[in-house]
């Protein structure tokens, strides 16, 4: 197994590191690495291209998530972003920190209950959470939100969705990562119950919540000036 040829395949990972450092187009870097790696493992160019095509075709199911775009388009046409801004003034969410903290908790709880699709960058952040955070930001800066601050709030909204989702979903028993861990353990002749795995996700959820609370307070403080 440890022959010269297969050690060379680690250079395929090097292609990724180099590409990211040189800030090249990531699609190009990934495709280059997935062509070079089989070549280093001793495959012919024809086989390398066929390998790329084979795995790409069987991974098409991932792009199914984009079927929601027409719906988002319709809702934005109908003024969803405006409506989200209106919602901020009616709820008691007066600062961007409150908006993001509220969404963080909601996302963590729903992910822990297995409703991971209740959040998401396309489904929730762009149409709803980012405009709500911006509106609250405009509110506490009395309409003097700078372009830089606006950008920071949008990025924070996207980060909130990721962090709360990542450190919430593992509490649920039937989420993909728990099933994967169970499968890998079983392949190594170790039997565990899902709840034995998911209980260890609770400290992470608590830690993520604590850090985010601090970050959101910092955002609010810097906007109040």
């Amino acid at each position: 197994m440890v022959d010269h040829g297969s050690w060379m395949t680690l250079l395929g990972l090097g292609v990724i590191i180099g590409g990211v450092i040189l800030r090249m187009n990531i699609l190009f870097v990934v495709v280059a690495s997935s062509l070079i790696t089989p070549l280093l493992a001793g495959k012919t160019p024809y086989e390398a291209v066929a390998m790329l095509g084979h795995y790409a075709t069987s991974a098409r199911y991932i792009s199914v998530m984009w079927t929601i775009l027409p719906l988002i388009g319709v809702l934005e046409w109908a003024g969803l972003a405006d409506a989200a801004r209106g919602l901020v003034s009616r709820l008691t969410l007066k600062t961007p920190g409150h908006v993001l903290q509220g969404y963080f908790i909601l996302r963590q709880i729903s992910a822990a209950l297995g409703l991971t699709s209740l959040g998401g960058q396309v489904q929730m952040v762009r149409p709803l959470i980012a405009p709500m955070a911006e509106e609250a930001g405009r509110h506490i800066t009395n309409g003097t939100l700078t372009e830089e601050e606006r950008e920071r709030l949008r990025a924070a909204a996207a980060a909130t969705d990721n962090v709360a989702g990542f450190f919430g979903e593992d509490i649920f028993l039937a989420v993909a990562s728990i099933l994967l861990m169970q499968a890998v353990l079983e392949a190594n002749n170790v039997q565990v119950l899902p709840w034995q795995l998911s209980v260890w996700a609770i400290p992470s959820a608590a830690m993520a919540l604590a850090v985010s609370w601090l970050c959101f307070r910092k955002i609010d403080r810097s906007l109040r000036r």
Partner: protein
Amino acid sequence: MIGMEIIYAALGLFFFYTAYSALRRGAGQGAALAGFWGLYGLHFIAGSVFNDFSNGLIIIGMTFLALCMRSRSLMPTVVETLPLSGSVLAGGEDGAKKSMVRLLLPLLVVPLVAVLFVLAAPWMHWHGRSLIDPKRANQIGYVLATLAGLVVAWWRLRPPAGLPFASGSALVCRVGWPLVLPQILATLGGVYMAAGVNQQLGVLLTIILPPGNELAAVLGYTTGMMLVSALVGNAFAAFPILFGALGLPVLVQSFGLSPAPVAAIGMLCGFSGTLLTPMAVNFNIVPVSLLGLQDRFAVIRAQIPAAFFVFAGNTLLLYVLTFFEGHSSP
């Protein structure tokens, strides 16, 4: 049986429409855009008919067209505000409240229908044959849920015919080539596995680390999970490598830790790595183009505190567990 082929064909047509509207708009990059989305549409409609080599050529062709598009879609020259029309928002406070419900309803229908469908899928039979492909129940449920959301939106909002497609493909163009990246990264994972990269990395790590040292082993395992997840943009791909290389033989078998916390905490360290890398495209790069941010790393920057704090906490937790060797149940 409802399988994925119908959905792929519909998505392919949608991408063809995107190519057509890009071509009609013309203007400089129109041809590259049209070629890119046209090839992607072809990959969806005819991917199962073409052989592997032809599909590989399609992906390579798309990659070169993406280079022609440069990363303009990633770093827009003018940051547009989120498109608004506010056409429904009229009639003061009361009207606004009503329209908010009208607008949120379709958005909430999606997860609800998706979850209900997945729960109901095992019972959907017709004369003893399954009506839907059981392996892809999640994806099929999601697509049907978005259609249900569209129906509700149509009923409540009455958009002009053709608007869903037009605005949907405008969003596709705004996201640009990063839209295909989640799929291509999964492809990379498959290629790595087939070429034996995973095994080699595991072998390398066991050679580097000093034997018999708990702290080094824990740090090697958690840091390794974080770094490899960051490198391939996916904790799921990193987990089998590092659990097989360090977690099971060293932490569990030599130091007597229970396998459950070793696995769970390792996976969560991988999640920290995923929050820190541009390789986790759909989480960290897609929102950058979706929200029209200038800084490509803006989302990653906002995630640094949480990622490192949770990583440090989890590493400490696993190290503390080594003091209770064999008693760290469950």
